[in-house]
């Protein structure tokens, strides 16, 4: 039997199942907390930091926090909102994001959040990193320019034997996603499709696929990010 706990969300008393991830618990109560590295059904790793909220006054990432009785949660303050906008801007300045030519444009979570936070020009110095487009794999195209290193693919994509296809290489600003030649050898079309859908940006593409949804019908053309929760 599930037990329910009372907690306060932006001053309003709410209910959630004990131990629910804060992002979900808030969504169930109509409050949208933006996420980039979090993905339903895979273990969280608080790396993008965009979901930062205040729990009892202390900043924590909502994707790695579970609801407990009497928790006081503040999801939106001017400082938090400005922090979130900064995270989006930093990501644009850190990588090479050329939205108009990207297969994921219109369905990209990073782009959608940039619209949500009304990003015009990034207030951070562009790093213009030299990054590769990796195309040796028969089915997967990896565009490192667009990768935001959210680790979703590492955490969420495994082959039939439960082995990972992706992993990090290096560290710091040299961090990169590597594809395993062996575990990805007989990858099914479905799994590549799943990886492409899971990737928040256009960094994992299924070869011979792209631009298949006309402008106007793409995910965030239809409804902006967050509207699935906020209505």
């Amino acid at each position: 039997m599930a037990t329910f706990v009372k907690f306060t969300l932006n001053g309003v008393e709410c209910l959630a199942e004990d131990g629910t991830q804060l992002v979900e618990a808030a969504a169930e109560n109509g409050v949208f907390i933006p996420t980039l590295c979090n993905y339903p059904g895979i273990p969280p790793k608080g790396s993008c930091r965009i979901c930062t909220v205040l729990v009892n006054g202390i900043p924590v990432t909502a994707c790695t926090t579970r609801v407990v009785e009497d928790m006081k949660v503040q999801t939106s303050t001017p400082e938090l909102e400005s922090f979130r906008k900064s995270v989006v801007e930093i990501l644009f300045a850190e990588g090479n994001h050329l939205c108009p030519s990207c297969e994921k444009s219109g369905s990209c979570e990073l782009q959608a959040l940039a619209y949500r936070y009304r990003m015009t020009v990034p207030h951070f110095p562009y790093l213009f990193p030299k990054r590769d487009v990796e195309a040796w794999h028969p089915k997967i195209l990896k565009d490192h320019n667009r990768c935001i290193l959210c680790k979703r693919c590492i955490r969420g994509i495994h082959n039939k034997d439960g082995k990972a296809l992706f992993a990090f290489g290096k560290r710091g600003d040299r961090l990169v996603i590597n594809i395993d030649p062996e575990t990805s050898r007989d990858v099914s079309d479905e799994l590549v499709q799943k990886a492409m859908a899971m990737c928040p940006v256009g960094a994992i593409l299924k070869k011979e696929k792209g631009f298949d949804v006309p402008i106007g019908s793409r995910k965030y053309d239809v409804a902006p990010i967050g509207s699935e929760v906020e209505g």
Partner: protein
Amino acid sequence: MGNTITDVIKQYGGDETRLMDILIDIQAAQGYLSDSAITQIARALGIPQVDVEQTVSFYHFFAREPRGKYAIYLNDSVVAEFNDRAGVAKALEEAAGCSFGQVSPDGLIGLFPTACIGMSDQEPAALINEVVFPRMTPAKARALVAGLKAGQAVADLAGTDFGEGQNAHPLIRSTVRNNIRLRGDMVFDRYEPGAALRRAVSMSSREIIAMVKAASVRGRGGAGFPTGMKWEFARKAPGDVKYIFCNADEGEPGTFKDRVILTELPGLVFEGMAVAGYAVGARHGILYIRNEYRYLRPYLESVLTGMREQNLLGAYIAGKAGFNFDIKIQFGAGAYVCGEESALIESAEGKRGEPRDRPPFPVEKGYLQKPTVVNNVETLCSVVQVLVKGVDWYNSLGTPESKGTKVLSVSGDCDKPGIYEIAWGFSVNDILKMVGARDVQAVQVGGPSGACIAPAEFSRTLAYEDLATGGSLIIIGAHRDLLKDVVLNFARFFREESCGSCVPCRALTVMAQRVMEQIVAGKGTPTDLARFVEWASIMKKNRCGLGQTALNPIITTLRNFKPLYDRRIAVGDDRFMPTFDLAAAVRDYDEAVKGP
């Protein structure tokens, strides 16, 4: 060669959580970790090769390509730079015939920079195949390379001018010096092996924890967390298997006290781990020690063996039925972030040193998901002395909120750099007098992640309630270029050492370094300074202490040495971009028009 890999893996039971040990041993045998080695390791362990690569490529000392028969790692810390590191580097390059980051054409010598190796009182220092070469000079550098070319052994080239105390021990034989300038009443006082353990077994685990709490022992690793409370959490955490880690990663530039403690008093540290094991109900201890201190390994192993023979480790310790505890040594491979306790645990599990999200805390789910205590070397020493000498004695030292003593690592511009064990509560001025420092411009307290303070603050005291510190003081003389020689060096350090997981830490460490470079080059703007303040608040939301403090060198100097920045800022109209170089921007055009 193939057999080496299978043998090594067999030796570790084909256990993927021992990947660090496996990689260290294979690299020692083969010189580097080749593509085929990675593939073989992955197959033998039954894990994807990208996972092996993930661990390998995270650590500075793991090589994916040959780094020369002799890889020379020259420290590039601030204090090394103070002591003519540039001259040594140049001499090495000329003698070896290659630049830093390269291997000499004959494959004999490789030259690489490395972050602080824990020798700040005897810089510049280099590491060659696990041998430390402290106090380098350009002349020594030339002689060293000549010796290597002539086929002399690395250990012979280091010479026999062994350091004091155990540095001359037959199992160490190192020219590294202890430089213990002041022995305090706790760590460097007399120590009778086994006394604390005999006392411990006459008490219950609850009583020991109560005693550690009554003494209000706090962590010496930087954060100052109450040790008794940490042990109690771990003791109460459900589960039969628990672990005690001693954190000897000591990567904070300017810190070297744990090296000296482990050289002179490893038994004290190990005894502290055993006491912790008894109090918490743990049977396994792991000393996680940085790779830079690998020259201590045979000696530390022999001390452990000796303690087993004296029944201070193993089964039935100090005659107590059911008290079993043993210690293994885990080496790192070059990553500052692995000093952060959850990254340390990840690393000990064979993974990249990426800090974990909290909760759960290590005391609930730590090493292999079991309750784990991580304590600093010096913290464990304190506990032993509390048991032997009592709570009242401990509480008679220090200040109201900081009891006991603190071992300081002092380096930089002073006559007597080295180790000073003081009671908490000394002022910075007291210390400067003691170490023979004159004309001091600034003191970096607690390493780059701490604060850079100006003379106006030298009357402040070292204590958890005032200037909290993991124990390092870098003294910066009036003649130094603070922004260039110190702040920029630290900015580079953090960029290099970020694990890269959090967006702000990964990107802003790079951006901060670039902007700092521009400021040092006289191309900064007033906007840049305002930016730093905003960035620092963004950085506070990173996952771990590294990212949270990475802008401290900039922020604390901006607060305490603002005129130094103002002097370098391109004054006047802020609408212009001082970084814009018109000549460079039109160079292509000029060349096309005029020809090159």
